[in-house]
Every structure is written in C-alpha cells, then in structure tokens.
C-alpha cells in the first residue's frame, strides 16, 4: 500500500518542516566498546566474539579507553561541551540481535552535549545545526531474515543472528530540532549528514563508509503550518544509509506528512522504513507501551570523569577542521569558487583528494570525477564514492590519454569497462582492442576515402571553409571505429589539402 503524497512545492507552500537527526557513527577502534574482541567488518559470522559479546552468564564489561577518547574528539569537533562526569545506563528491551537484552548506552549523562555544526548549503549560505548531545553506546548484532519473502522481516520464517557487530563502539549524535530550513530541508539533511561523516573521517575515529553502515542516519521529520510555534507530530525514518537517501527520505516524508495533514488526519508517531528501490517509506512500529526501556545506571561500569587536562590533551590532537581543510584544498587545487562548491556538493572532495594524492593533476582529477563519475553515479542512483572507482584507476586512465595510447572518448569507454568489472584499464584497452591508431598509413587511406566520398566538402575546405572539416573527420573516425586520434586526423586532412589552418 502506498501513501498519498503532496507535491513538494505544495507542501512547502502550506507547511514549515522541522527536522531532527540521530546519526550513529561506528568507531574504528581495534576492539569493541566493552570487550577485547576485534572490531572488524566482514569476517566469518560469530568469529569476532568472545563470552562478553555473546552475553554469556557471568560476563562483565570493561570500557575501551580509545573509544572514550574518540567520543570526546567527536564532541570537541562538534563544538560540544564535554561532561566532567558521565555514566552508562542500561536500555532494557528484548531483541535477538541484542545479546544481553539490554543495550549499554548513555541516557541522561552523555559524554558531549550542547554543540553545533555550521553547514554550508549549495547556494553558499551557512546554516547552523545545533547538537543536543553525542553519547557512547554499543552496536547490535546482525539479523538475516530467511524463508518466506526472503530478506524482509515481514513474512520471514526464521532469522539468523551474527554477533560480530555486537558491541562495536558507537557514538550517537543527536541534533536539536532544526527549524527554518524551509524548502532547503532535504538539501540541508544531506549536507548535515555529509558534514558529520566528513568530520568523523577527518578525525580518523571512523572509517565513515556509509555503505558499510559506519555512518547511519535516522531522520525525524514533522510539519507545522507556517507561523505556528508548536511542532507537529514527527515520524522517524530509520537507517537511511546514503547521502542521497537522506535527501530523498526527508523530501518524501515532507510530502507524505503534508498529504496526511491535508486530509485532516493526525500524523502517527511511528518509525518508518526507507526503501531505496521505490524511494518511499513504509510504516514501521508505532510508539507503544513496550517502549518502556527501564533505563538505570549500569552497575557493572564506573563513571567516566573527563578532567580538563585530558580534554585539552585530546583537543590538541584534533586535525584541521573540515571547513578550514576545504579552504586549503581549494587553494592547493586552484579551483574557482564555483568549481569547488560543485565538487563539495557532488560529495567527491575526498575522492578528488585521494586521486590527486595517487598522482593525478588537480584539473584531471576534477575532470574525471565531475565530468564522468558523478553522472554515472547519478544514473546508478548511488553516491559517487560508492561506485567503486579507485583513485589508481583515474591515474592510469589519464596516463594512457597523456601518452596518446587512447583518446578521451576511448578512456570513458575504458572507465565503463572498469565499472563493469572487466579488469584494469590496461587490460580493457587490450581486451577491447582500443588503441589510437598511430601509424599514419591506414589513416591516410581512410582520409582519401572520406575525401573521395565527399568531394564538395573537400572543395569547401580548399576554399578556406576550414570549419567544414568536421564532416571529413567524422567520416574517418567512423571508418576507424573511433580509434583514430581526431587531432591527428585533422592535421593530416589539412596537410593533404594543402591548407594552412
């Protein structure tokens, strides 16, 4: 069943959106939050666990110092206050991915609170998002639903549980209600999550790979009629796990809420599930009396006391903040303001930096990412970084072009081959038989043929209308199946016709 939606424009005419985000960041510590089992993605199921992660009888947690320091760093980078004293609490609920049937989290004593993040939007304006808190907690295991309509929880016959992820350190960053974004709300949503991701990656405290769930976003949306102070009832869309999805989900929820409100019905306070395939949300669980989490201070852990000295020591280790980094990178790369903003908005700054670091010129890196990869990502409906283009691939492609081994047109074809998994650029050039024909002999034959086929055009060129040369070049390129270097073809034609261009 699909929900009714209003057009975004109409929704904006009638209502003012209020947003809120809970972003979960998985820390890249070597071990888990409360156990010494490794924090590694992608290993065989139930091998990165010990008795603590499995919630065996008798086990006790011991807090990972590096995870605490990473959390404090995140707090500092979000301009938060760091709590001088804070504790963990137990959040009690039964779920098979939660080995103890409670999550060890922080409740009313987060390690960081009262911060903000300035978000630059595509039009250049800066929007301040206020951070309510950033707190430490542990991740749950991974459920796979099988049988019935496989992969979906609905209708599954059974589920399998892998506890490798159980106990992975998380920092949950919660915003205060974000008001005043208006029609820029979807863009702000995406830009905010991108900024958080950038910060934690820049700090080196998280791998920040959204496709692996290192950064996960729950997006709260509510609408209120223009001019009203009181917030509307919100929905919480869970696990919106790419930047584009964040933008789309917020946009969709605004449209859906508007339709509900227009119909005179109340919005239901509930969780929503995001579906990337249909770009819609569906109803999850309504808030109920089962949400009584019975928080109480975790008796098996002792308080964390962050002394001023410790916090300042950590502050001193913080890397250059992303905003300053952007200024520096723009200067280093020599991009114009517009070029640089496009790069940032396309979400490929890190990729360009890596590509340049791998040996490509700044202009070349931009040309490939902005000119080729962003468009392909858009078509594939994924973030550019998720397309799977390695910096080394770009460097190799540009080298092949520079060396005259292939031309630009072929290079894009090679890129498609790489994305299709056909191998490295060199292998694809070889396999597809793509190479600029450098021996002029076959080219001259093709040029003769093309000139003979279009004698009137040849005459025009001889007569000084050099711009007509395109038809002859096109004929040659067609005959050589695009393998000729168009520049060289042009030279040879003019030479042949004795025209100085």
């Amino acid at each position, binding site marked *: 069943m699909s929900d009714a939606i209003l057009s975004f424009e109409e929704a904006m005419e009638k209502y003012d959106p209020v947003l809120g985000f809970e972003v979960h960041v998985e820390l890249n510590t070597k071990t888990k939050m409360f156990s010494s089992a490794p924090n590694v993605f992608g290993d065989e199921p139930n091998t990165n666990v010990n008795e603590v992660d499995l919630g065996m009888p008798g086990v006790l947690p011991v807090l990972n110092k590096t995870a605490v320091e990473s959390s404090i760093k995140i707090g500092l980078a979000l301009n938060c206050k760091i709590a001088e004293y804070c504790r963990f609490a137990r959040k009690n609920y039964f779920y*098979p991915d939660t080995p103890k049937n409670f999550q060890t989290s922080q409740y009313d004593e987060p390690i960081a609170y009262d911060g903000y993040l300035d978000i630059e939007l595509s039009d250049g304006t800066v929007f301040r998002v206020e951070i309510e808190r950033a707190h430490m907690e542990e991740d749950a295991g991974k459920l796979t639903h099988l049988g*019935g309509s496989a992969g979906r929880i609905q209708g599954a016959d059974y589920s399998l549980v892998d506890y490798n992820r159980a106990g992975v350190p998380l920092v949950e960053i919660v915003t205060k209600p974000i008001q005043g974004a208006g029609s820029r709300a979807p863009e702000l949503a995406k830009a905010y999550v991108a900024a958080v991701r950038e910060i934690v990656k820049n700090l080196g405290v998280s791998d920040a790979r959204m496709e692996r769930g290192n950064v996960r976003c729950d997006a709260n949306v509510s609408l209120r009629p223009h001019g009203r102070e009181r917030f509307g009832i919100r929905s919480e869309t869970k696990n919106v796990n790419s930047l584009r999805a964040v933008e789309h989900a917020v946009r969709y929820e605004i449209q859906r809420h508007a339709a509900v409100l227009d119909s005179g019905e109340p919005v239901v306070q509930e969780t929503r599930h995001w579906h990337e395939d249909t770009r819609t949300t569906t109803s999850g669980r309504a808030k109920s009396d089962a949400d009584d989490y019975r928080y109480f201070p975790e*008796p098996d852990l002792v308080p964390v006391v962050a002394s001023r000295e410790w916090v300042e020591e950590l502050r001193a280790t913080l890397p250059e903040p992303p905003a300053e980094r952007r200024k520096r990178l723009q200067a280093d790369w020599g991009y114009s303001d517009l070029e640089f903003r496009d790069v940032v908005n396309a979400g490929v700054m890190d990729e360009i930096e890596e590509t340049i670091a791998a040996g490509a010129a700044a202009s070349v890196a931009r040309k490939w990412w902005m000119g080729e990869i962003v468009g392909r990502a858009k078509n594939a409906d994924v973030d550019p970084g998720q397309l799977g283009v390695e910096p080394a691939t770009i460097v190799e492609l540009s080298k092949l072009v520079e060396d005259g081994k292939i031309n630009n047109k072929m290079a894009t074809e090679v890129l498609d081959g790489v994305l299709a998994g056909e191998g490295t650029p060199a292998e694809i050039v070889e396999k597809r038989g793509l190479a600029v024909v450098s021996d002029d002999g076959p080219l001259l034959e093709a040029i003769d043929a093309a000139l003979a086929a279009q004698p009137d055009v040849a005459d025009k060129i001889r007569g000084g209308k050099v711009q007509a040369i395109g038809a002859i070049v096109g004929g040659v390129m067609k005959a050589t199946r695009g393998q000729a270097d168009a520049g060289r073809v042009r030279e040879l034609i003019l030479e042949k016709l004795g025209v100085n261009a």
Partner: protein
Amino acid sequence: MAAINRDDVAHLARLAHIEMSAEELDRMAGELAVIVDAVKSVSEAAGEDVPATSHPIPLNNVFREDVVGHTFTADQALSGAPDSDENRFKVPAILDEA
C-alpha cells in the same frame, strides 16, 4: 504509590517476556502487592538533598587499552545454542514490525 493489580502484572510480564497464565497473574499480583506495601517506606526515607549511591565503593575511569584479546571460533560461540544454521544463531520469525 499505586497499588499493583493484575493488569499491571500482565503489562510487566510482557515487558519482562515471561508468559503467565491468568491464575499466575492473580497470584503474582497478590504477592507483589504485599511486597510493594512492605517496601513503600523507602520512598519517604530520604530527602531531596540526599544523593543517590549506585556504586558502593566509588571508582572512576576504569578503562581497557584498545588491544585485541581472545575470540571464540564459531563452533565455540554456538556450542550452547538451542538452534543454529550457517554458523549463526537461528531464531524463529520476529513478530516486531510485521
């Protein structure tokens, strides 16, 4: 403090994931009412100004260095599992969110 009745116990049993028969709920409500009555003086014992004690012997900042320790093999992890498949714990369908 409110008295504890059968509906309360039914709600608590749901939260605690313990199935209870109607007869058990009645019995438990009676027993809990007596206990709750006996402990109610606690809520009036301490004034506003008295801080709570959650740890009998106060300690702070007990940490573990971020160094990898022992892990189980999947077989060890699953050795006590009531049911498993493909090196994972197997559980019946999850009702939630259906």
